[in-house]
């Protein structure tokens, strides 16, 4: 393996993991916001 392959491996894995970490956080937020909205709808229907 040459230096470029090592550099690409290091930066590539970090970038992929960082993007995945971000995407996971945003997906979690979307789920929570959707749950909150559905909960609000239930409350409105009941009242």
């Amino acid at each position, binding site marked *: 393996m040459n230096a470029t392959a*090592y550099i690409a491996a290091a930066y590539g894995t970090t970038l992929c993991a960082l993007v995945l970490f*971000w995407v996971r956080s945003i997906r979690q*937020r979307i789920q929570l916001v959707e749950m*909150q909205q559905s909960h609000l709808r239930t409350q409105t229907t009941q009242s």
Partner: protein
Amino acid sequence: MKDGDINFKIAPHPWMICSLPLLLISWAYGLFIVPTDIHQGEVYRILFLHVSCAINAFAISAVLFVCSVQCLWKNNTHFSYWGLPIAETGLFWTIFTLITGSIWGKPTWGVWWTWDARLTTTFILALMYAGFMVLWHAADNSSTRNKSCAILGILIFADVPIIYKSVSWWRTLHQPPSILRTGGATMSTPMLMTLLAVLCCTLLVSAALIRYRAQNRQLESQLEQQMFELESSQKGEPL
């Protein structure tokens, strides 16, 4: 929705969105513009990433320490929201310190891994961050969870000076400090400036991630409270 409830948006704050492109720009500068090292050749460019990951993991442990002390001393409830996101981000950077260090170590030292003092103490840091997360999810009661995790948070921070001094206390494979040392840094100014730029951008990304995930936890606990109130009102029980 009650007056005290917070309505978070899905999209992150603009400065949070900016943090990732800024990090990529600083990486590109380190990869393509800074001159090649005369001794190590091109492979030294991994160090911009490796060192910034390590300093991030250490800085996050300092933040965790402050939050833990506040939790134990003043019984601060913010720890319920901030504790886990801080530990998750700390674990992320510690794992990447080990991975990038290993990738750099193979062409430089000839081995992927060795039980060197610095590598071992950094590995212990990763285990402690992971232990924090396990403990967080294992506890039933939030007060017990906060206290036990806060104690572990303090212990995590105690490992950082040991990691830093490990290369001086035990002379093993890892080289001694090359930035914070008497007689000044051994790196050339353009390399040092690039490292600082990558470090600042990585810190910004970490702050953005921790803030976003802490807001998620706040939203989660708010939702749990609302669900509980709804269930209680359906059963006709007093809150």
